[in-house]
């Protein structure tokens, strides 16, 4: 088996995540789809590291994980605040910056 199959899988997962972001209306699920896309990118990075035989790709995946963790913390805090003020987690209701 050629490791490029991992890249195909990564592309597939990224596409599914992107389609999910476009399709779903629940902010939490949209956020989960973003996480799926980030994970797919990480898989591509790790595979590239193996293809090239050095660890730089893994370092990039590591930084992506750190940034994703920070992003999740802030994003979920925003969702909770939004839910408090509007009693809804639908992205359709988020049309104004302020209530």
């Amino acid at each position, binding site marked *: 088996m050629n490791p490029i199959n991992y890249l195909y899988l990564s592309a597939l997962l990224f596409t*599914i995540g992107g*389609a999910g972001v476009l399709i779903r209306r629940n902010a939490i699920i949209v956020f989960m789809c973003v996480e799926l896309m980030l994970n797919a990118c990480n898989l591509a990075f*790790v595979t590239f590291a193996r293809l090239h035989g050095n*660890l*730089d790709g*893994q370092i990039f995946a590591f930084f992506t994980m750190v940034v994703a963790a920070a992003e*999740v913390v*802030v994003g979920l805090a925003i969702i909770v605040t939004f*839910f408090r003020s509007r009693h809804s987690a639908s992205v359709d209701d988020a049309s104004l910056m302020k209530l």
Partner: protein
Amino acid sequence: MTTSTGEAVQFWLLGIVAVLGALGTVAMKKAVHSALSLAGTMIILAVFYLANGAYFLGVVQIVVYTGAIMMLFLFVVMLVGITAADSLRETIRGQRWMAALVGIGFGVLLIAGLGNASVHSFTGLGQANSGGNVEGLARLIFTTYVWAFEITGALLITAAVGAMVLTHRERTERAATQRELAERRVREGAQVPPLPAPGVYARHNAVDIPGLLPDGTPAELSVSKTLRARGQIRDVSGEALESLRELEQRSERHAEGEGESGPAPANGANSANGANSANGAAK
């Protein structure tokens, strides 16, 4: 260098499950089910990292992603939970189909682009991992990427402070005391006495069963607000009337069987009974 057969088998088995998990994340109606599907996909990705020689990242993926991030997601789903049902109504007409089409188009482009790449041989991580994967990563992080690493620390601190600022809520006014609440109720004139208790004494005393008003209709106020919002009220008012009717029928039948002076049955199913009543009429 090529991969082993075992790795190929593992890839095809787990790859299919990973794609199914990703599809489940998008397609599941409830946010909890989506989160669980995503957690499954992430665990499989951790296995793939391990297979690709990224031992440190494989463990970090399980600890940080499935351990911390997905639990945070589940926590928020529980917090936002009940009323956050996804509306299936489309606000833009045909948006779902268009989005699916765009997704498929994007995927075809991406995969076709990958198909053009000529990757016939690969280097493998044998040499890079020779001194240990964690040691190799540490050497890179603290030499070449040390500036990015420092910036990441600042980012994490900012994110933690940001989350606290966003979710913290200062109480701007004093909480009303019990006396003030009582006075307000009297002033407004709405529901001065305590709320009615739930349950129907003779049969049910569960909290999700509304008490019945004198005319037999359920008193919505006797059930807690949360249960009302969830629509989890068990209405037994119809049941009570039904059983009352049943009781009446039964007592009627009982009276018929006992008292022989009752009116003759119209259908005359029981011939002996019919003869009896005919006798009575003749007398």
